[in-house]
Structures are given as C-alpha cells and as structure tokens.
C-alpha cells in the first residue's frame, strides 16, 4: 500500500513539474531532467554504444522536449514521450553522414552483418549481457534495448523505430541468436 502511495505521489509530482515546465518554468524542467536523465542517457548509450554520442543525444532530447513541451498532451507517460524523442534522435543521427561513419544503417530485415560494434562501455561492466547487447548490429540491438531492457511491447517498439511489428520480432529472434553465439564463445575462452 505504501508503495502505491509513493508511486502515486511521484506521478503527481511529475505531472505538476510538466505543467510548470510547459509554462516556461526552467526550474521545473531541470527537476524533470534530474528525474529522467538516467533513463534517457541509458537508452541512448545502449542504442549507440558511444558515451560521447549518448551525451550529445541526451542533450538534444531534452532541448527538443523543452521546445515541444506545450504540445505534450499526456497521452503517454512523460518518460515514454521522452524516450520516443530520444529514439528519434538516435535514428536521425545514425542516418546522418557523421552517424554513418560510426555505425551502419539499421537494416529492415536484419540480414546486414557488416557491423561489429566495439563497445566503449566500461570494461568493468560484466561481460555477459550488457556487452553482448552492445556488440549487436544496430537493428537487433535497438529491439533488445527497447523491448528487453526498457520493457516496451513489440508494438510500441515498432512504432518508436518506424518499422513493422514483424520486423521487430525478426530482429529480436536474430538478436537472441547472435547473443547466444557471442556469450557462448566468450564462455569457452
């Protein structure tokens, strides 16, 4: 019961902060930033595998959110709304000439195998799951991050990524296969 009360209180607080930020209250927006930066940065970092890019994209996400706050109608949670902006920012960067130098394009059907991410995540990170995800090709990695880590449904993840639900499922299948191979080979070494 106490957990429910705490959760409701947090939601109310977030709604109030969003309302104030919509009116141009930068202090309220900073509080929202403090509440959500970890999840936004985590999402960007896991989708890009590049801490510097993730920082830039996190900044872009919050700047874009600030500009667009008056258009936020509360149809989804503020956190989900921020995540959608962040995913769009990551995908736009990946399509840019600069982004293409860093990673290959997300393919539609998951056949592309030319990408081999060398994650710059902290080497102290347990080698298992986090690094296996970072080594995935972008399309497969995206769905593991959104669906596997952040808990979005295939439908929600597909909408965020601008692909068909079937593509998401195929990418997840492929990701599991690749991760199994990678983790299996590392376990043998």
């Amino acid at each position, binding site marked *: 019961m106490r957990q429910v009360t705490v959760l409701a209180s947090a939601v109310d607080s977030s709604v109030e902060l969003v309302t104030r930020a919509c009116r141009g209250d930068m202090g309220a927006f*900073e509080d929202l930033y403090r509440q959500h930066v970890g999840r936004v940065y985590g999402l960007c970092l896991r989708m890009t595998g590049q801490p510097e890019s993730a920082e830039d994209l996190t*900044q872009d996400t919050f*700047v874009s959110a600030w*500009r*667009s706050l008056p258009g936020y109608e509360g149809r989804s949670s503020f956190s989900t*709304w921020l995540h959608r902006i962040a995913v769009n920012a990551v995908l736009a960067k990946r*399509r*840019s*000439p600069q982004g293409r130098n860093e990673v290959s394009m997300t393919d539609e059907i998951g056949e592309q195998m030319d990408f081999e991410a060398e994650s710059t995540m902290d080497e102290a990170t347990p080698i298992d*799951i986090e690094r296996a995800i970072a080594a995935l090709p972008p399309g497969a990695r995206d769905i593991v991050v959104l669906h596997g880590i952040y808990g979005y449904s295939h439908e929600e993840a597909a909408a965020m990524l601008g692909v068909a639900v079937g593509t998401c499922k195929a990418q997840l299948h492929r990701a599991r296969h690749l991760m199994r191979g990678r983790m299996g080979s590392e376990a043998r070494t």
Partner: protein
Amino acid sequence: MNTIPFGPRNEPDPLLAKAAELPKDVAPARDLWPSIAARIAGEPQQARSRSFGWPAALAAGFLVASVSALLTWGLMRDTDPAQPPPVVIAERVGTAIVPVSYGPNSGLTSKEIVARDDLLARFQERFTELKPETREAIQKNLAIIQAAANEIDAALAKDPASGMLKSLLVGAYKQELQLYSTVVTSSDGFTRRT
C-alpha cells in the same frame, strides 16, 4: 544448458530475462544540465495555440497525394486536344523551379537532399521543354508540396516523436521525387518530342 529456446512463444527467454534485470538508469559521466540550460535559455517554446496540428498535417499529406496523382495522370495520358489539361493556366508561365524546402524538424538527411538535387538537375533539363500548361501544373504541385512540408514540419515541432508525422513528411518528399521522376521519364507533355 547452452541453448535458447525459440519454440514456444510464451516460454521465458533467459537472455531477455537477464536484459530486463539490467538497471534502466545509467548516469552520464558529467552533468549535462548546464549545456542544456545554455541551449534552451531564452529559447521560446512552441506556442500551444499554434494552429498547425494533426488535422492540418494529415490534410496536407492527403492533398499532396491527390494533386500529385492528378499531375501524374495528366502527364502520362495521351493528349486530347478537346480536353483541357487538369490544371488550367491563365497567366504567363516561367521556367524557374524552386525545389521544396524541408524544415528543421523534417529529419531528412543531407544524403536524401543530395539525391533529390541530383534528380532535380535532370528534371530541370527537361522542364524548359514542357508545354507551358504542364510547367504551370508542376509549379502548382511543388507549391502544394511546399505548403504540406511546412505544415507537417510545424506539427513535428509540436510532436517531434510522432512517427506518423515523419511518415507524412517522407511522403511529401517522395511525392516531390515522384514528380521529378515522372517528368524525367515521360515522353508526354513536351512542346517537341525528344
């Protein structure tokens, strides 16, 4: 056990279960707020009362599709002197073409714009050979696509996460390419056969 079950749909996947246990929050190495605050300081938010929204963007997308389809039909059909062209021209028609300008929220990449400009160069070679009424129709179509791109871009500024708005924007971009491509590949509507 070194295998991941792919069979039964509802069987829990140990890898995904592990992924779900990872921390959702990751703290950046430095505080990003000062940079964000500097960027948004003094920057006005989009006005809530701005008239552009979903209905306008959807209408714009539909109009682009309809009118461009009409143009394509007009270019591709055999010329019938008894029938007026789909868009009637009343004034002198120039040969200047202003390609569609996509706004800052479009997300179009420089590669996509370069691809458009390559096609535009070939289109412009043929444009001057078109009949005046065809040129006018094309210019009107481009103006419609431009208006649609403006409205969708404004709607995207309000809702930058909207996948549907981005699809509409890409649709406008594709209509522009389709328009150029139709002219480049068509043998109709020219003042002289090439």
